[in-house]
């Protein structure tokens, strides 16, 4: 996941302040390298400490920075996901489409229907039929298995992209904390 939890606890805020401080220190060193000056290690260490120590002692001080950073990360993830999907579509799918379609549509015999009966979905799908356990539990392994079983080997090449898209998914915002109403 490229984004951090939308509802951080103190531990997350502390960890973020350390990571952010190290990142800031590294940026100073990298900038100095780029500008061909001697890496100002003391300055880098000082900046790292100035950010990390208050964040470790008073993690709530980091909340606004955390939230701002996470917002930026979500924005980047949204754009990256969009671009990745487009690139994937115009390269892999466009090329595979050149092989033609295997879909053969038969006309139904007179008086018959191609509608297929469906049974009622389980109550767990009440909120979202797409989020039914059968639809999501297999994940990437399910795509892999399906492509092997069905002989659609080309779909195997999609799996790394699907994995990448999953890593770019942002954590859902809003709603009460996930576990406060897990009761028994």
């Amino acid at each position, binding site marked *: 996941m490229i984004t951090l939890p939308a509802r951080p606890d103190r531990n997350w805020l502390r960890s973020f302040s350390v990571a*952010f401080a190290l990142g800031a220190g590294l940026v100073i060193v990298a900038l100095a390298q780029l500008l061909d000056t001697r890496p100002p290690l003391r300055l880098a260490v000082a900046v790292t400490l100035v950010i990390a120590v208050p964040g470790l002692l008073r993690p709530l001080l980091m909340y606004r920075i955390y939230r701002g950073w996470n917002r930026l990360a979500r924005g980047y993830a949204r754009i990256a996901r969009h671009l990745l999907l487009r690139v994937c579509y115009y390269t892999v799918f466009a090329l595979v489409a050149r092989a033609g379609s295997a879909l053969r549509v038969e006309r139904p015999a007179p008086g018959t229907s191609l509608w297929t009966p469906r049974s009622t979905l389980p109550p767990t799908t009440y909120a979202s039929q797409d989020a039914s356990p059968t639809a999501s539990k297999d994940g990437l392994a399910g795509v892999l298995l399906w492509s092997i079983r069905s002989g659609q080997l080309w779909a195997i090449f999609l799996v790394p992209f699907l994995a990448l898209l999953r890593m770019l998914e942002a954590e859902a915002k809003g709603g009460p904390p996930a576990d406060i*109403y897990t009761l028994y």
Partner: protein
Amino acid sequence: MRILRAILASLGSPICWLAAVPVLALGFPFWGIAGLTRIVSWILRLGAPHPVPWQQLMAFEPTIGWKPRPLLDAYAKGARVFHLTTDAEGWRGRTTIEESDIVVFGDSFAFGYGADDRTWFAALHTTLRIKGIGANGYNMVQELLWMERLAPRLRGKLVVWFVYYGNDLYENLQPNLDRYRMPFVRPIPGSKDWEIVTSHIRPEPWPCPTPRRYYPRLAEICRPSFLSERAFAACSFLLARGRDICREARAPLVVIGIPVPAQLEPEGISRLAAMAPDAAAFDPDLPDRRLAETCRALGVPFVTLKDHLTADDYIRGDGHWTPAGHRRVATLLGQLHRELVGGGKPDRTPRLEIATS
């Protein structure tokens, strides 16, 4: 054709990766910080106490729905990991109801969600013993049912009823909390009276768990609407029943209104108003006013925490009280006990604004 497709996909895939690399490289700072934060978080958690899953802390309770398990001494996960103990009946803290001076009925606020045993409001008073009767997610119906059951043990104690505007007003009307079945109230057809429904309470999951959208519901309740009228009518019915129970038990009752943090700051009020179907009619003080009116009519003292807490007394992103918030609530309970029951040492704190008849 299948082989041809696989060959074409194998050709397209590297091109795709080449095109994707710059996009992914741009996100390097985000990948770096996210990864590093997770590693540091994992290291920091190594020495920390391990929280017990909530499923092991709560248990199904016939008629009422659920209840904390008895004799717990565990760490639980809230906004942070916190230490909690429960007595032989499952209520937070080791003080028994008989030993206590104040008995607080409520939801996760009365349970002290997110606060350690040392820092929750019931443990902070030096002279008074306070007992919290509550659990995460309780609505006022569940709290009233406990009040009814425990009534013989309340005599002479100050009974405090926490009413949280975030979900209590709405969920008094709901048969379920997510997948858990919950007692609720409904109007009796052809009558102006209400009834408590518990016949559906079973451990089996509720077949149609509904998404919890409290802020939009609260926004709707904070303006004249059908839901608002219904929510306040149900609340009045429950408060009247509570008043009768406490009167019979000879225990003075006081109602405390707990606003959501958004009701305490202009930015939050604007956010709530934007969720209301009619922003112009939105009134963040409506729950306080309606509850005060009801309590006045019933002859029950009412205090709103809006006069005692600020948004900073709530944990951001969680909505429960900070240690400072717990301290303020403990102080308030002490003042209420002094004003309504008497006794204890006199102090210099100003008299409370209590709405009474």
